[in-house]
C-alpha cells in the first residue's frame, strides 16, 4: 500500500483526537498485519469504504483509552463501555475515515463511506479478505495504545 494513502488517515486520527478529546497521540511505526494476527483491544469502530478505494478502516481501543476519550469529549465520568462509549467510538471512526476521504479526494481518489459498526470484546479481531492489504498504524496516549487498521484496495487506473 502506497504511503500516499496512509498519511491522510494518520493526520485525520490525530486531528480527531486532538480537536474533540484534547489528546495528542504519538504514532508508532506502521506494519502489515498478518492473517490471524490480533490486536489488544476492548472496543473497535469500523467504517466500510467503497469506490476507487474499497475495504474498511478500523480504530481499536483498550477500555481505559476509550473511556478517557469519551470523558474528554463529553466532560463526564465513564466507568464502563456503556452506550456513550460505543457511540463515541463509532463517531471517532467516522471522523478518521471522513477526514482521510477529504484529503484523498483532492489526490483524485473518490469513495463513499458507510455508517460505523462498533464491536466490543476482549482482543476481538476482524478477518479481512486475503487480497486486501491491511496496514496497522499504532498510536499511544498516556492511558495506553490504540490502533488504526487501514485495509484498502485502491484502484490506481488512470492515476
Amino acid at each position, binding site marked *: 500500500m502506497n504511503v500516499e494513502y496512509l498519511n491522510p488517515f494518520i493526520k485525520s486520527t490525530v486531528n480527531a483526537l486532538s480537536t*474533540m478529546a484534547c489528546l495528542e497521540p504519538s504514532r508508532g511505526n506502521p506494519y502489515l498485519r498478518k492473517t490471524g494476527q490480533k490486536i489488544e483491544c476492548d472496543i473497535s469502530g469500523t467504517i466500510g469504504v467503497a469506490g476507487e478505494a474499497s475495504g474498511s478502516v478500523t480504530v481499536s481501543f483498550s477500555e481505559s483509552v476509550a473511556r478517557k476519550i469519551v470523558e474528554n469529549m463529553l466532560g463526564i465520568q465513564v466507568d464502563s463501555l456503556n452506550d456513550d462509549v460505543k457511540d463515541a467510538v463509532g463517531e471517532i471512526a*467516522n471522523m478518521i475515515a*471522513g477526514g482521510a476521504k*477529504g484529503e484523498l*479526494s483532492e489526490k483524485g481518489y473518490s469513495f463513499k463511506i*458507510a455508517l460505523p459498526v462498533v464491536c466490543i470484546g476482549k482482543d476481538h479481531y476482524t478477518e479481512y479478505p486475503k487480497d486486501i492489504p491491511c496496514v496497522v498504524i499504532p498510536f499511544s496516549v498516556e492511558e495506553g495504545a490504540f490502533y488504526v487498521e487501514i485495509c484498502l484496495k485502491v484502484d490506481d487506473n488512470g492515476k
Partner: protein
Amino acid sequence: MKVIVVDDSSTMRRIIKNTLARLGYTDIIEAEHGLDALTKLDGVDMIFTDWNMPEMDGLTFVKSIRSSDSYKKIPIIMVTTEAAKEDIVEAIQSGVNNYVVKPFTPDILKSKIEAVLNR
C-alpha cells in the same frame, strides 16, 4: 431562537448542544435522523444536521425542507465528517447555508452560525 440538532450519534448531538448552550442557545431539540426531524420542525429557527444517517440522510432531509412551503426559509448548517470538496459543493447546491466538518472547535461552529445569521 429555537434550534434542532439532527444527528444519529448521541455523542455528537450532546457536543453540538453543549457548544450551542455555551453560545447562549437554550431552546434546543434533537432528532436522530431526517425523518425524525421532519416531524419536529414547527417553530424551529435554525437546523444543524449531519449527512450520513439511517432512515433519511442529511442531503435528502435538506432537499425535503427546501421543497416545503412551510420550512424552506429555515437556515441549515450541515455538520458532518464528509470533508471532500465535491461533497461540500453538493450540500451547498442542495440548499445548505453553511458547512462544518467534524472534528470542529466551538469557535468554528460559532463563526459558521454568525456567517449564516449575518447574511
